[in-house]
């Protein structure tokens, strides 16, 4: 879902450094340093031991003093606080904002109750994914969404282009990019009890995917009960001048149990939860059907179409996609993205798109794309790592059960 090929970036840097002229590489990265954007919490991360790395044009903490293993486990046992201010929050306003957004995404936004949201996908003319995004209907004339940092420029250009055409035909829609706000994700079993200390609003009445504009720690925040870990939790869009106070207050109210958590653990958590990382598990040429997000295509949208690439996508729904995203567990070394997947006869059937060692399950997990038919749970496969084939099996996702807070 959110981000941009973090691990590939790191690994390609090491490889390049091992081979290439060190000075040339150093110069290249020094030159980009000045361009790296910093969130308002940058100094706070550094003073808390954050190891800062470049990510989608931002300097972000990959981890803090805890190992990625401990940090991942702590988020599920207690809680984790993530700075995700690099992501781009956006409001669409105007009486026609719903028909406008519905042209670009697969969700039935019209059917959403005010104050609720859903995971959705921006599609291109071929039905491929431009980005994934959580889209919220604040009210009938206000949509709030958050897009990936790595996709910001292309997403905004895409939206802007369609907005111009839409307005030229008399449609009423305008946008506001929330660069005045920062975004914190508070995830894990302590998320709700800790956040409850900081707001008068009754959080037990706000369920998974719900959205409210409420006062938290003295600031007007956009609160969405969502996240990227599979745990219960919140994403809090806070005016940037209040972000540091809010981060400190959350950590303090948890009495040290909720810990600052970096991008490394975030990636482990989302993989354990079976969630896509855009750029790895979803790309321009992958449709939502292939990605296993058919559930995100609203019923009405399946009947009516009316979004970019609908023809391709509706045809795939009818005939079934040729490839599918599936989860895997495997023996041997952890599979990484681009590891080849073979059937038990040694014939290529696909490729891993994300993989690693699960800190919570203590075994190798991965996701990737295989030919339809080979995607069923229990199917035996071979995964190639450094030329050697290791036994793997298609495994249902999420790997770790999700704990979203839903009405019982």
């Amino acid at each position, binding site marked *: 879902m959110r981000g941009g090929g973090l691990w590939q970036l*790191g*690994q390609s840097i090491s490889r390049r450094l091992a*081979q290439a002229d*060190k000075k040339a590489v150093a110069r290249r990265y020094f030159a980009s340093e000045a361009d790296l954007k910093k969130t308002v919490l940058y100094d706070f991360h550094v003073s808390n031991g*954050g190891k800062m*790395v470049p990510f989608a044009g931002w*300097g972000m903490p990959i981890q803090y003093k805890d*190992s990625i293993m401990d940090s991942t486990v702590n988020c599920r046992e207690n809680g984790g606080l993530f700075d995700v201010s690099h992501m781009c929050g956006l409001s669409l306003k105007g009486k026609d904002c719903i028909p406008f957004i519905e042209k670009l995404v697969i969700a039935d936004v019209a059917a959403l109750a005010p104050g609720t949201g859903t995971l959705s996908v921006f599609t291109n003319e071929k039905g491929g994914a431009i980005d994934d995004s959580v889209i919220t209907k604040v009210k009938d004339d206000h949509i709030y969404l958050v897009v990936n940092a790595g996709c910001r420029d292309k997403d905004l250009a895409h939206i802007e282009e369609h907005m111009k055409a839409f307005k030229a035909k008399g449609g009423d829609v305008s946008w506001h990019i929330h660069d005045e706000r920062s975004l914190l994700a508070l995830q894990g079993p302590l998320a709700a009890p800790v956040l409850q200390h900081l707001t008068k609003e009754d959080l037990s009445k706000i369920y998974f995917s719900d959205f409210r504009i409420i006062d938290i720690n003295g600031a007007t925040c956009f609160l969405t009960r969502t996240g990227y870990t599979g745990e219960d939790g919140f994403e809090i869009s806070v005016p940037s001048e209040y972000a540091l106070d809010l981060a400190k207050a959350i950590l303090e109210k948890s009495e040290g149990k909720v810990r600052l958590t970096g991008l490394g653990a975030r990636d482990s958590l989302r993989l354990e939860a079976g969630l896509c990382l855009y750029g790895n598990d979803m790309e321009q040429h992958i449709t939502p059907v292939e990605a296993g997000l058919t559930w995100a295509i609203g019923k009405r949208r399946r009947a009516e179409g009316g979004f970019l690439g609908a023809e391709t996508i509706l045809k795939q729904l009818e005939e079934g996609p040729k490839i599918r995203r599936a989860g895997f567990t495997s023996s041997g*070394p952890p599979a990484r993205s681009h590891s080849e997947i073979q059937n038990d006869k040694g014939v290529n059937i696909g490729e891993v798109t994300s993989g690693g060692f699960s800190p919570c399950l203590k075994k190798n997990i991965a996701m990737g794309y295989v030919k339809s038919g080979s995607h069923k749970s229990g199917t035996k496969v071979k995964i190639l790592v*450094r030329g050697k084939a290791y036994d793997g099996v298609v495994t249902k996702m999420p790997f770790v059960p999700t704990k979203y807070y839903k009405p019982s």
Partner: protein
Amino acid sequence: MASSRLLWATRAASYLRISVFHRGFSTVLKDLKYADSHEWVKIDGASATVGITDHAQDHLGDVVYVELPEVGAAVAQGSGFGAVESVKATSDIYSPISGKVIEVNEELSKSPGLVNSSPYEDGWIIKVKASDANEVNNLMGADDYSKFCEEEDAKH
């Protein structure tokens, strides 16, 4: 010689001159020899024991898998013979000395974390019958290696 192993995250950070948290100085043992790719070798007669250094394991983080060579395989100084996988990164292991593998640490298949908890003792990786004892002259002693690590960290 290119210094060929460091956790990429730290390395990326170092090339960006952005701050990295330091866990303090890593342990270095006097009687070992060190390669700039962060392996150590302990010469004991004809047998040479090889592992990765405390500095290396600290930068890698939790080791979850060690890919070992076969007994009998030939290794060459400066060439890769296996790999260490941490939660997120994969890192090649280079042999600090040439020769033939006479033993591999099978314990690492069950407990790869030994590389973290005991890099110089229980976390050893292979034993090699060295073909050229003079090769150790290409390696660093403890003091030089400590200085080498400090300099690498100082670049951050």
